[in-house]
């Protein structure tokens, strides 16, 4: 059988990669994707924990997370569209009129 720690480490790695992506990417869309990546990592953690502990909650949480992700996606994409509409760019680094 596969030791749980493998899954957990994998989820940690994915989460970390998500974080790196968030900082590294410039396109708002991809940044948003990196958030999705992080959420997925969390899901993995949930699933493997639920399996480890033999409790189903973990898996239930995954549904909730997915729903939340969906909601965020709807709103986030709408905001992104607005940004693109008003500024004609998706590069976060050009969206910095609010500062200091």
């Amino acid at each position, binding site marked *: 059988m596969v030791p749980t720690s493998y899954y957990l480490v994998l989820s940690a790695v994915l989460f970390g990669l998500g974080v790196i992506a968030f900082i590294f990417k*410039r396109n708002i869309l991809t940044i948003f994707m990196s958030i999705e990546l992080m959420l997925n990592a969390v899901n993995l953690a949930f699933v493997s924990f639920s399996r480890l502990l033999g409790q189903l909650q973990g898996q239930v949480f995954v549904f909730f997370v997915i729903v939340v992700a969906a909601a965020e996606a709807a709103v986030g994409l709408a905001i992104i569209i607005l940004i693109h509409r008003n500024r004609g760019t998706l590069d976060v680094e050009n969206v910095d009129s*609010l500062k*200091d």
Partner: protein
Amino acid sequence: MPVLSYLWIIPLLPLMGAAANGIFGGRWQKKVITAVALSSATLAFLLALEAVREFLTLFPNQIPWIRTYFTWISAGGFQADFALQVDQLTVIMLLVVTGVGWLIHIYSTGYMQDDPGYRRFFSYLNLFMFFMLVLILAANYLLMFVGWEGVGLCSYLLIGFFFLKQSATNAGNKAFWVNRIGDFGFLLGVLLIFRTFGSLDFATVLPRAAGMTADPAGQIGTLTAIALLLFVGAAGKSAQLPLYVWLPDAMEGPTPVSALIHAATMVTAGVYMVVRSHAIFLNAPVAMQVVGVIGCVTALFAATIGLVQTDIKKVLAYSTVSQLGYMFLACGVGAFGAGIFHLMTHAFFKGLLFLAAGSVIHAMGGEQDMRKMGGLRKKIPIAFWTMFVATLAIAGAPGFSGFFSKDEILNEAQVISPVLWGLGVLTAGLTSFYMFRLLFLTFFGRQRYDEHKVHVHESPRSMTIPLIVLAVLSVCGGWMAAPQLMGGVNHFEQFLAPALVTGAEPAAAAVESSGGGGEILQALLGAPVIAGLLGFLLAWWFYIKSPEAPKKLADSLSPLYKLFSGKYFIDELYQAAIVRPLVWISDKILWHAVDERAIDGAVNGVAFVSRESGDRLRRANTGNIRSYATWIVLGVVVFTSLLLWMVD
């Protein structure tokens, strides 16, 4: 005892006069003002006489006669009452102050006739009378200090009376400040007295002080400290070295003021105070020596300056300083009685001198430089004769008042130390020299003024009468001591003695007994008289016989002459050594450097630093979310590491 029991009336009268004139006088015309001022002074004098009469009827055990009217200050264990006291010493001072003061009031009505500040002048003058009376009637040191400061105030006001003149106001400030330095000493002395005796009443302090064992010679014990501190005050008020500098400048004031305040009464307050505290001084040998030496040196020092002054009032001013020196010399050698005696006679003849000089100036239309006078003998005979009498008196011509007092002082000094005596005699010679110089320059020789510019005229009666009265006093003011020469008793001393024997063993009395009883001839041919004579002859030689002589002498001894005429450059010294540095330090260092740079700089610095750091901090908000995310991750890493590594 109508007056003695209501003693407060005497000082109150002049105060009322001052208040009335000062506050309401604006609307009154001159007559009323004159009436108010004069009546208050006159009444005060009359009541003083009555008081003296009543005093003479008292039994010895009722003396000192003390009346307490109300509590002025009381806090914790401390209490100072508004209490007046009369004893022999007070009586003398009372007569001098009210009497001379009264005369000078009269004189002033004439002298200030045309001055716009007439009302102001008289309210000040009355106020002065009030404070002076408080000073001498006070029954404790604190109330005495009230009068002490008060007369200082009035002197400030009256010196700066012509406040449009820069020099006058400067002189006023100088007088007040220098006096304040003295008062600083006096105040500390008073504090020390309170700390030592737990009270400030003469009636408590002096007997105790007398009862204490004297500080060993050459050492500074409590009593000596007190005595010295008090003497600092005295030196300030009575213009002794090194605090005399204000008195010559004080001549900026109107002449009657110079006569009353800066010759007859206020400046002698120091002497009075020392005599009043003689019980303390007697047990403080070091202090006694200091007083004597300072007095003697001042006498000589001022006399030398007086030799070469050309301003008639300046001469008199320095002579005043010198004479005050005599009085302190007397105190220093324990002859307090003699000191007071000289104080009195000096009040007569020096007051007279000033008033006469005043009427000369009046006659000359304000001219004070003797070199521009001369030959006034015929034009203003009264001024001349009175002044002549006064000169004889101050020069110590036998029979005149000055003769007795000065002679006595020197006798006493002789007993204590020949050196002091020698210097005293020398001073006597100088005194008669500069006084006759003044007389000759002013009244003899050819007239050195322009007949058409100034028409010399005799003063109005209001001015001449006081002159004559004072002249009479200057002649016979000293006769009370005369019998002594015939081996009799010195009535003055005898009268004063009870006030001076609060001490367990009155040194004064001892000295006196040893000093007394010389016979006439010795006295008449005594060194002082000789010296005086020499001085007179010298003056006659210089200013009548060969008027060009002084010039020659001045050239031959030019450095000495410069030193004298430059007043030993003491003022310049003070300016350079004290005043300017103080101002510079306060301005450049304390204010600008410390206050503005250092302290405020620090305060504003804090504000600046926080603003700067704020500016740095807000730079973190680049507006770029990638950097924000970086910060967040930074926080995450730090905090998780904190948790994982640190916390456990």
